[in-house]
């Protein structure tokens, strides 16, 4: 993501959208929901691109983060903004239970994570004393007034999730630029060779899993305070896995901007167009898009567009942006 693009993105998201849509609670809420998907998509892409791990279980991190934060604020009076961080930490802790799966390679890892996600969902339904079971948790505290600004409104929530997404993007950017990023990039090409020259591959993967889980968990926590309601089927819903994967694949999961733009596009089109055309089963189109993208262009729509529009000399540079 170059500077010009980042600046344009920041101006649109921080100035244009609040001032044009700020009064319309429905639309600003819709963009905020799209940003929730965008954040998870970035976390998913971080694990997939840098860690080389495809996860079908990010719904677990999302749900654990949501419940951690909700329970801490409701039962233990923790301030909401602190609880958002705690939600991320909770999700990271839950990811520790998944660490043994890192021994497994490629598809086996993906499937083990899928199994873990199921386990967490069942636990959330069964642990009724903490989660309220299938009945759910009602009246979770909203985001508070902070420094004179009421973050409890739709617009306030939008600003908070936008900041969270920007923080995840910045973190991702710096990890990628660091020596860790270089080692991870090398691992992507040949894990064996990288191990031989002394890169602690497993340790790096663990860190990536922790970071990705933390990001997803804090976004889940945000969502809990944003909609003020939780139940296991919602918090651990497969949608929290499906949407981000479609978004990341669609936008191109090897780029920074891809997952965010993909999520904004996919979510808004899904809610505004597909949902009104077919009220039931509109995720069918998402599935078809995902399948189509994997066959036609596994690295996303964005790389094709850049190739199409960019002047010739930039093409090599764009292709070289691997990992």
């Amino acid at each position, binding site marked *: 993501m170059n500077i010009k693009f980042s600046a344009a993105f920041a101006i649109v998201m921080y100035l244009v959208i609040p001032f044009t849509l700020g009064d319309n609670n429905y639309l600003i809420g819709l963009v905020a929901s799209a940003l929730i998907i965008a954040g998870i998509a970035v976390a998913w892409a971080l694990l997939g691109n840098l860690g080389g791990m*495809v996860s*079908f279980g990010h719904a677990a991190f999302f749900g654990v983060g949501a419940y951690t934060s909700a329970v801490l604020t409701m039962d233990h009076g923790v301030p909401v903004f602190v609880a958002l961080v705690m939600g991320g930490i909770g999700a990271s802790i839950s990811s520790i239970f998944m660490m*043994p*799966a890192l*021994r*497994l*390679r*490629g*598809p*086996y890892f*993906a*499937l*083990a994570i*899928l*199994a*873990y996600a*199921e*386990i967490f969902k*069942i*636990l959330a*339904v*069964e642990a009724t004393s903490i989660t309220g079971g299938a009945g759910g948790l009602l009246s979770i505290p909203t985001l508070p007034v902070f420094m004179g600004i009421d973050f409890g409104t739709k617009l306030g929530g939008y600003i908070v999730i936008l900041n969270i997404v920007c923080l995840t993007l910045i973190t991702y950017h710096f990890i990628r630029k660091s020596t860790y990023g270089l080692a991870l990039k090398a691992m992507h090409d040949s894990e064996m060779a990288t191990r031989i020259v002394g890169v602690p591959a497993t340790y790096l993967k663990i860190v990536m899993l922790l970071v990705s889980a933390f990001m997803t968990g804090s976004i889940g926590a945000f969502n809990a305070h944003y909609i003020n309601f939780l139940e296991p089927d919602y918090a651990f819903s*497969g949608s929290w896995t*499906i949407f981000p*994967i*479609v978004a990341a*694949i669609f936008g191109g999961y090897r780029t920074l901007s891809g997952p965010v733009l993909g999520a904004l596009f996919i979510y808004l089109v899904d809610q505004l167009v597909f949902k009104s055309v*077919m009220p*039931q*089963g*509109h*995720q*069918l189109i*998402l*599935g*078809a*898009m*995902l*399948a189509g993208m*994997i*066959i036609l262009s*596994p690295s996303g729509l964005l790389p094709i567009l850049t190739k199409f529009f960019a002047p010739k000399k930039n093409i090599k540079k764009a292709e070289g942006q691997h990992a």
Partner: protein
Amino acid sequence: MELTAQALFTGLLMGGFYGLIAVGLALVFGTMKVINLAHGELVLLAAYIAYALESQTGLNPMLSLPIAMAVVIVAALVTFYLTNQIKKDRELNSLILTFGLGIVLTNGLLMVFSADIYSTQSSWFMEGVVIADSLFSMRSEMIAFIVGIAALGGLYWWLNHTWHGRAIRSVSSNRDAAKLMGMNPTKAELWSWGVAGVLAALAGVMLYVTSVIHPPVGHSLTIKAFVITVLAGMGSIPGVLVGAIMIGVIEGLTTTYFQSSLAELASMTVFLLVLLVMPSGLFGKKGAH
């Protein structure tokens, strides 16, 4: 004691049926190293065809088998064709592809049949069967078990004693060598997907008569099928049966002594433990992956 015997018996019956669900996935995984995350949805598709036939004509749902087979074979071959279009990194990209196809199938069924829960109208399937004076089961469970064992046995025989079966085995054990011996790997893969479709159709019709169906069931069936496949280790038919019975018995015991909602949790936990201790499964060769 009687309770334990009953739990073991129910688990055994469920195991035969689970084996039928899982073996199609295991077969494709063996030949093509592709895990079809839409497998459970293919099974569910057959179940809905059985429902459609029964609700429209009032006939025995088992009679829907030819139609279900035709439709599911076509669906399986389309999946095969699409999977074959993937050029890069097929192991991982095929997961995402079939995951997407699963979403398409689930939502397609949701649109056509709504989110309602269906089960067979015929009470004949639900009548009790008693064996050895003390072991109870529903007639449909007995039928599903027998069909499952027969299908697994038939598949085992087919893989070992027919030309096409042997071709599949040779391609799954060493693709390049098989090619040098004059085998056409794509053809063998085509056969394995087709047979997987037949097995999925059988499993789907059995699913409809033994239990209830609604769209999300497909996803849980996929998870169950790969849990069993991984427990079994790659491409081992007897392994699939043992793994399936293991899962069935664990679920039976958990349901009897704790509660039915924990059954899935127990089988998942066992699956993860086995995966971590023996990454190549109970019957897989060491270092097979």
